[in-house]
């Protein structure tokens, strides 16, 4: 229907009834928009500031990792998977490498598992701090961004101290973690174990993170304007959340205390004490508070793990050429954003036959059309931001 037709229709309608019906306006939000976290596009049909319907368009950042994986060796794929959810690179490496280990029947040594645990939790802190900073920014508060990112930098420094990479650690190897700097005579002797002073640095950084969390409590959570913007906004009931396949903090904020670290741990999580944080109402405020408290829990886990880490080798005995026998497996882990899984089908050989990535943000984002219906445009920003997605994770 053209504009002219609509206009004509209106004229005729006005003639019979006084009620003037105006057509909705199509508002294209994104792919370049300050609050779409990259290149998400929402085609919103709005009536003034009220959203009638919204249709997300994804794929602007599709990099084809599932297909790329079919032409890369298992060793090379590690470098790809930590680029899927780049704010928590290490956390998305672990389920993949565990899947490969399961297919090969390799059990990584204790120390390697504990290092993985510590680095995963550090990645969780780093990822949540990005959310802690960007979410208030979306509501117009600029200061938490700088405070949270300043301390995230210290966490990234820790990750870099061990792995050599801030965002893309590429530190997991089949059978453990990266054992040595190289394969030559001299480099083989250079162990990639935890460097001296790292544990002390970690402890002081975690203290800093606790202080940061308290700061955010005062600056953001307790702020009346923040509450006014988030309490009761974008409520996701528990059953809806389960229906749409939400996971991670988004699900827990709706009152489902489901955490894969408790349910299906593949790292020594049973040996550390931590609480599964959950909230009840499932609104934006709860999603923020749940993540904030998860930072505190993650920091506690790191502090415990630093005390408990056993000594031993970094990598199990694995053949030099990684060849995976025929078989298939699905391994999932608790990524900072939720359930992150890899389904690997191997036909034998150095490359997987097919790898399906169950990325968290994609599923979490699927609730957008439902949740945004009938919201205001400022709430669109608030609700969308509270789901904490990364576009690389959505489009893969």
């Amino acid at each position, binding site marked *: 229907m053209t504009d002219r037709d609509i206009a004509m229709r209106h004229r005729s309608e006005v003639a019979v009834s006084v009620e003037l019906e105006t057509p909705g306006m199509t508002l294209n939000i994104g792919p370049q928009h300050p609050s779409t976290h990259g290149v998400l596009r929402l085609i919103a049909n709005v009536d003034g500031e009220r959203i009638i319907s919204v249709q997300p368009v994804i794929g602007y950042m599709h990099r084809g990792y599932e297909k790329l994986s079919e032409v890369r060796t298992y060793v090379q794929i590690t470098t790809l998977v930590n680029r899927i959810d780049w704010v928590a690179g290490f956390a998305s490496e672990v389920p993949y490498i565990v899947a490969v280990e399961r297919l090969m029947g390799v059990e990584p040594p204790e120390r390697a598992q504990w290092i993985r645990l510590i680095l995963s939790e550090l990645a969780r802190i780093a990822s949540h701090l990005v959310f802690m900073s960007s979410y208030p920014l979306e509501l117009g508060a600029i200061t938490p961004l700088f405070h949270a990112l300043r301390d995230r930098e210290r966490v990234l420094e820790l990750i870099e101290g061990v792995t050599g990479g801030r965002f893309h650690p590429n530190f997991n190897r089949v059978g453990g973690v990266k054992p040595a700097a*190289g394969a*030559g005579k001299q480099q083989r002797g250079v162990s990639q*174990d935890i460097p001296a002073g790292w544990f002390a640095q970690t402890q002081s950084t975690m203290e800093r993170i606790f202080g940061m969390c308290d700061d955010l409590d005062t*600056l953001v959570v307790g702020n009346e304007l923040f509450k006014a913007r988030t309490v009761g906004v974008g409520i996701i009931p528990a*059953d809806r959340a389960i229906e749409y396949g939400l996971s991670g903090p988004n699900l827990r904020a709706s009152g489902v205390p489901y955490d894969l670290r408790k349910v299906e741990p593949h790292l020594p999580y049973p040996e550390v004490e931590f609480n599964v944080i959950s909230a009840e109402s499932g609104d934006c405020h709860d999603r923020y508070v749940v993540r904030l408290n998860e930072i505190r829990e993650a920091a506690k886990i790191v502090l415990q793990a630093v005390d408990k880490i056993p000594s031993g080798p970094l990598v199990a005995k694995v053949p030099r050429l990684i060849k995976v026998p025929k078989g298939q497996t699905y391994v999932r882990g608790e990524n900072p954003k939720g359930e992150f899984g890899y389904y690997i089908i191997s036909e034998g050989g150095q490359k997987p036959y097919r790898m399906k990535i169950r990325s968290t943000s994609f599923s979490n984002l699927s609730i957008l059309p*439902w949740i945004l219906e009938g919201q205001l445009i400022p709430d669109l920003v608030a609700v969308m931001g509270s789901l904490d997605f990364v576009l690389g994770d959505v489009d893969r």
Partner: protein
Amino acid sequence: MTSKDTPKDTPKDTSKNIRFPFPGLFKGLGLTGKYLFKKPATVMYPDEKEIPVPRSRGVIALDTEACTVCMVCSRACPDWCIYIEGHKEEQQPEEPGGKVKVRAELDRFDIDYGLCMYCGICVDVCPFDALFWSPEYEYSEHEVVDLLHDKDRLTDWLGTVPDPPPLEPS
């Protein structure tokens, strides 16, 4: 209650959360006010620099002496950004009657840092200690082509390779 009749966003009077005299608001103001008198965390980059950790993956250094043109790194690279060319050279034996040695000579060893994703697999797999990580990071260029570091440039980085850090006693 099934999900069908779950009330979605029941319109709530959110204004009741705003209660006079806004204690949280003033606490927030107090926090920013406190930071006004604290030292900024900024590092003034070109004047002062943060020193990267020794393991930091900044740039790859090449030891041409050690390289045997085995191409292992080039094949292991996930995005094929290492270009190697070489030729075989016969070395005449020093004593007459001795064996003629065949030695591989490196003609070209280029790493395209425009493509490199800093995964470090090439360093991992090098069987002759020819590749090292250096934490140097200041090699941005105005032209993309200048990011292709040739053999000589890669050898220059060798001087910046730090000693491995001591390990935590276990």
